[in-house]
């Protein structure tokens, strides 16, 4: 990897264990960034007049002050004219952020006027988080999660707070992003010793549970695929492919970059995930409605928005040993609980003609026989509920199904254990919830 010397601003290349301790910058791209060609072989004339120079200078000065000789900045430490280098960088970026000694998150659009002798008012945190573009971008998701610590700085490079040290701030981030505090605080990489009140030791980053080094991916692996996808929902990237490429590290997968493939990149990402994971929550999404779209996989991370799907405890998942997912070019083979069902689809006018809402126009719907595919995962609110998808059997092949109505995700709850009829279920990831049946907007 290329690192920028914090004092000479010279780029140097390091490999493997020879890489020195370094700091890393997380930011959103703006105008007149300092690029590779501006610093390669020494600072080019005019570089220091570029708008992006300020964050380079701030980062280097802060890193030097914190005892680091080098800093990594994505604008100038990657030769983007080389597709091979760009591919390596994107596939390695999560690890680079994880391995960094410290990460500086530069919130260029947050300008606070604070007295350096006093901490940032706690009441300002929610505003800071809602105001900054940094929390809306796709790439910054892994940059928030992967590092051991992230320190947030304002436009004028004033320290706002630390993700690791400031719990109030971490809680505000949790609320803003949906990422659990356990991921942000990196207290433990395992669930051994559930009542441990200790946190990972700052200098050694040892987990108080397993006494091993806290590893970001180990922490992430305690969260289902659907849950991790939900963190990425609604985040934007300049290029649509980057919506997928920026998630490689979050799932511990690698894949070649094919700019131009557009949304196909997200299908490839899911396929790569299925190759290494048996987590059926990857099917726990609801696509935006599109007539005739019956694909098995999601079209974008947004389909997992508001997903509350989580793993089942091992003791509950009796299918665990045999539910391995095998991906082929045409289908995914897996073990799943399926249940015949009858689906009646009706449309209705949500704007009632009477003010009391009693006169709702309801049209006769379509009745269809199909199957529920009950996923081996639960929901955060109740581990005993099961997300389910609708499947249609393929003629002449009793074990082949295709997903239908992929704009809905059902929840099966054991409301009537003694009377199995009329169990209600509701959509996940939609704003409409009904007690009987369910409703979706499309």
């Amino acid at each position, binding site marked *: 990897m290329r690192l920028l010397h914090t004092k000479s601003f010279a780029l140097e290349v390091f490999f493997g264990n020879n890489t020195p301790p370094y700091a890393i910058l997380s930011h959103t791209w703006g105008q007149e960034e300092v690029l590779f060609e501006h610093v390669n072989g020494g600072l080019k004339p005019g570089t220091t007049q570029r708008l992006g120079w300020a964050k380079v200078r701030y980062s280097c000065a802060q890193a030097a002050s914190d005892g680091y000789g080098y800093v990594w900045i994505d604008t100038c430490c990657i030769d983007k004219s080389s597709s091979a280098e760009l591919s390596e960088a994107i596939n390695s970026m999560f690890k680079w952020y994880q391995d960094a000694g410290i990460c500086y998150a530069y919130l260029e659009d947050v300008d606070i006027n604070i007295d350096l002798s006093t901490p940032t008012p706690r009441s300002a945190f929610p505003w800071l988080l809602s105001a900054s573009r940094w929390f809306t971008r796709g790439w910054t998701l892994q940059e928030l999660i992967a590092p051991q610590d992230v320190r947030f700085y304002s436009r004028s490079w004033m320290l706002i707070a630390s993700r690791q040290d400031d719990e109030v701030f971490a809680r505000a981030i949790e609320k803003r992003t949906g990422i*659990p505090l356990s991921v942000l*605080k990196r207290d433990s990489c395992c*669930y051994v010793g*559930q*009542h441990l009140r200790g946190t990972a030791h700052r200098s050694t980053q040892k987990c108080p549970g397993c006494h091993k080094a806290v590893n970001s991916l180990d922490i992430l692996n305690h969260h289902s695929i659907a849950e991790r996808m939900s963190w990425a929902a609604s985040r934007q990237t300049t290029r649509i492919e980057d919506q997928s490429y920026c998630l490689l590290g979050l799932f511990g997968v690698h894949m070649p970059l094919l700019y131009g493939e557009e949304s196909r990149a997200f299908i490839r990402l899911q396929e790569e995930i299925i190759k290494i994971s048996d987590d059926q929550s990857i099917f726990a999404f609801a696509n*935006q*409605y*599109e007539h*005739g779209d019956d694909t098995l*996989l999601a079209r974008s991370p947004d389909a997992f928005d508001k997903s*509350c799907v989580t793993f089942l405890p*091992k*003791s509950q*998942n*009796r299918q665990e040993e045999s539910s391995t997912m095998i991906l082929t070019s*045409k289908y995914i*083979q*897996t*073990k799943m*609980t399926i*249940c*015949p*069902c*009858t689906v*009646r*689809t009706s*449309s*209705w006018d*949500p704007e009632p003609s009477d003010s009391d*809402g009693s006169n709702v126009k*309801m049209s006769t719907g379509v009745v269809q*026989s199909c199957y529920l595919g009950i996923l081996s995962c639960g929901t*955060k*609110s*109740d*581990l*005993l509920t099961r997300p389910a998808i609708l499947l249609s*059997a393929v003629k002449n092949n*009793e*074990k*082949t199904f*295709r*997903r*239908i109505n992929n704009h809905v995700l*059902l929840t099966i709850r*054991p*409301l009537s*254990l*003694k009377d199995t*009829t009329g*169990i209600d279920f509701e959509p996940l990831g939609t704003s*409409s*919830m009904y*007690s*009987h*049946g*369910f409703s*979706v*907007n*499309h």
Partner: protein
Amino acid sequence: MDSASTTDTVSNSESINCTYDLQDATSANIHLLLTKPDNERSDASEETGETTSALRVIYPPQVKWVLACPNNGSRRKNAVISQGSGQNSTITRDCRYFPSTKSPSLCSDDNSDKDPIGRNAILCFFLQAQQIPLWVVWGTMYGAFSRRPGDPPEDDEFTRPWCRILQPRDAGGRIPSDIRTLADLRSWATSELAGCFEFVKGRAELEKLWELEPPPSGTWDFQDFDSLLHKSHSGVDYFVVAEIREVEFLGSTMYELEIKVMVSAMYEREIKVITSGDGADKEETRTKGGGIVGRFDAASLLVEK
């Protein structure tokens, strides 16, 4: 999504009702097609494998448990226990009775002659073998949702309970986000009635409780929630009956917690006095509502190795 679909989103909604019987559920190795085949046709009558019984009551539970019973003083002469509350004999030694209490989140109900009942509580009990605390937060849904077309009748909503089984590991020892969501929901509901300030206080206390340590090893214990439920409505004869039984659902053995909200006829009389002047002073207890409110898998409480 094209623009036509976007327009549909604004103007139309779709309601889908699904009917199924989990007795017909099977577990099978299947192929899920990645895309729709050209010659695909559906046939729901296909047999899909061996049918297994997905739902089965196994046997009465052997799990010993202790429910927090705050504000015992408000229970009058153990009337519910001695009279059996009209419940059948299945409510035996494994059951504990405790009075319903005013939840901070619904204390505004005090001023509501429509619904004077506080029906929220937080319980905590510990499984002896694992010493893992299990938090049971429960209540009934009344007033929690605005009604929409297709919603059940109000009586059903009134009796419909909610419950969350929580464990510290759900969120690194802190109250997990789902209960926050639930709390937010109730905050909203309460604000519809009278305001949400009390609720905010309640949540802070809830979070404080979450930090409590488990009891010493080898003992049975329960947490006293008097501090949280300080607004307990003493003297009001609303009771809750709780029962745990072991059942099986979709291949998982679990424990089912049932909460029934009981109301003393005397208290109903007091309401009637206001409305009709009925002065009858007869004490009996009847079921006001309730049902199965939560399920948990005791085995899931085991510490993962």
